């Protein structure tokens, strides 16, 4: 049954990527200026070369043929060439992905640590003033645009990963706080407390099995939030990662690069969500 679930997730990922790819190819094909090719104006080219370039362009007129060619090239690792930077997209990704992965990874680690520490302490203490304080702190960060947090991190000379953490933290905290508060109100947990079980034992034996699968699902979603946060943070902090590349591509109207990046990030997001779902399923020990 677990195999079936994984196969279903795999199929959903492939279908989403193929559909997303078609959508992206359509966007690139219909974007203003697609038919214009500066290379055809190059005086050094002879008429045969210009004719060959025109023929190549004509082949891309059919949207499905264009998509099929793009897909075939992608299957061989060729993601096309960036219009604005004049470099292969795959090379740009190889150069920039490590920084983004570090930034997002560190941001997620810090945000989850802070959010869980606050949510757990609020659930343990059950003091309304402390609960209100943590809610106000997270609520304040929730009301500040991600790009402003990125700008403030530049002003205060704070690492970009902390800005990502501050963007992700309130979203994680809000859900984790609600989940844990609900779990700690369950009758069997109240009974366990009344019987004098230690807080750690209650946490790991009674609360985690209830809230764990949903927290895992939240972990999958938080990857998507962190990747989205990487755009303003990298763009405004001057970090040469995938987020900054996406921003530069958007400003330069470099749609082939931008759509490739969107598909790639979608793939990472889907993988993270599916992994969280499958792990949650395994932990619950359920049969699908």
């Amino acid at each position: 049954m677990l195999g079936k679930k994984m196969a279903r997730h795999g199929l959903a990922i492939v279908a989403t990527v193929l559909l997303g790819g078609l959508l992206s190819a359509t966007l690139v094909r219909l974007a203003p200026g697609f038919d214009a090719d500066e290379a055809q104006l190059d005086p050094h080219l002879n008429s045969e070369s210009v004719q060959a370039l025109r023929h190549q362009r004509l082949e891309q007129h059919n949207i499905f043929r264009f998509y099929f060619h793009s897909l075939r090239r992608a299957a061989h690792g060729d993601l096309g060439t960036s219009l604005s930077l004049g470099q292969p997209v795959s090379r740009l990704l190889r150069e920039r992905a490590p920084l983004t992965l570090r930034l997002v990874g560190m941001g997620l680690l810090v945000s989850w640590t802070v959010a869980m520490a606050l949510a757990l302490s609020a659930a343990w203490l059950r003091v309304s003033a402390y609960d209100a304080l943590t809610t106000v702190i997270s609520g304040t960060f929730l009301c500040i645009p991600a790009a402003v947090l990125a700008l403030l991190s530049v002003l205060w000379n704070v690492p970009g990963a902390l800005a990502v953490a501050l963007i992700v933290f309130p979203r994680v905290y809000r859900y984790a706080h609600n989940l844990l508060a609900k779990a700690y109100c369950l009758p069997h947990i109240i009974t366990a407390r009344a019987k004098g079980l230690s807080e750690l034992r209650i946490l790991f034996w009674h609360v985690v099995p209830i809230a764990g699968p949903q927290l895992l699902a939240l972990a999958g979603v938080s990857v998507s939030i962190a990747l989205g946060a990487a755009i303003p943070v990298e763009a405004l902090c001057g970090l040469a990662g995938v987020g900054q590349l996406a921003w530069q591509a958007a400003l330069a109207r470099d749609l082939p690069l931008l759509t490739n990046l969107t598909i790639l990030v979608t793939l990472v997001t889907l993988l993270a969500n599916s992994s969280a779902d499958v792990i949650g399923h395994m932990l619950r020990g359920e049969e699908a």
Partner: protein
Amino acid sequence: MKLWPTNFWRSSACAVLLLVVGLSLAANWLAPAGYAKQYRDATDASPSPQHWLGTDEIGRDRFARVLYGTRISLLLAPAAALLTTLMAALVGGLGGYLGGAWARGAMAVTDLFLSLPWLFLLITVRAMMPLNVSPLASVLVTFLMLGLLGWTSAARVLCSTAGSLRESDFVRQARASGIRGGRLFWIHVLPNLKPVLYAQFWISIPVFILSEANLGILGLGVAEPMPSWGSLLKELEGLVSVGEEPWKFVPLILLVVVVTAFQLVLSKQAEVAA
């Protein structure tokens, strides 16, 4: 026992929102000049009796721009939220009501859009716009784009609600009485979807305000000289320290106050939407 009753916070938040909306609507009378008027002899000026919040780097009165920018953000974010709600009702509500393959199809489309990262999708669609769009068109395009792309989570909630309504006793009874199709949807299903639709509408507004601000700071939002909270916040990029020119933080403070007020007002709506 709570120090302040919930209603106190909600009423205060409503009062703040009404005040800000009222001030922005009165921009024509309150602002010392239009949002694009340049005082070339007073560029990047500090606050003074003539310019309460100083002027920007090309001499435009910052107070006037904040008032007009607030008006644009606070009028168009609800318009985008309305569009989102209509799209969600169309895809999710109708899909859930029709059930079967329609519901599965609606959810497949919703899942596809949900899996695309929001900010990546926004900047990709924004990048498709030609470079020579007029400022007014850029305002409309930005909020139209937010409205057209932000319907997914609302559609999911509506699909599930409409699906359960379809199986409810009163709808079965209406169907048994011979009421079918559009009439059944219009008279029996839609009125019961209204609380969820209202909740989704109100919840979308602060989300769109923040999204527009993010796009504006990244230079992919409303085009100059039209002001919006996003374009006003772009000024923060040039700051060297926080204490240097604190009046430049007024648009940020206003935005945080308004979004916080929305969150306080919407705490009950969020429960309905869930």
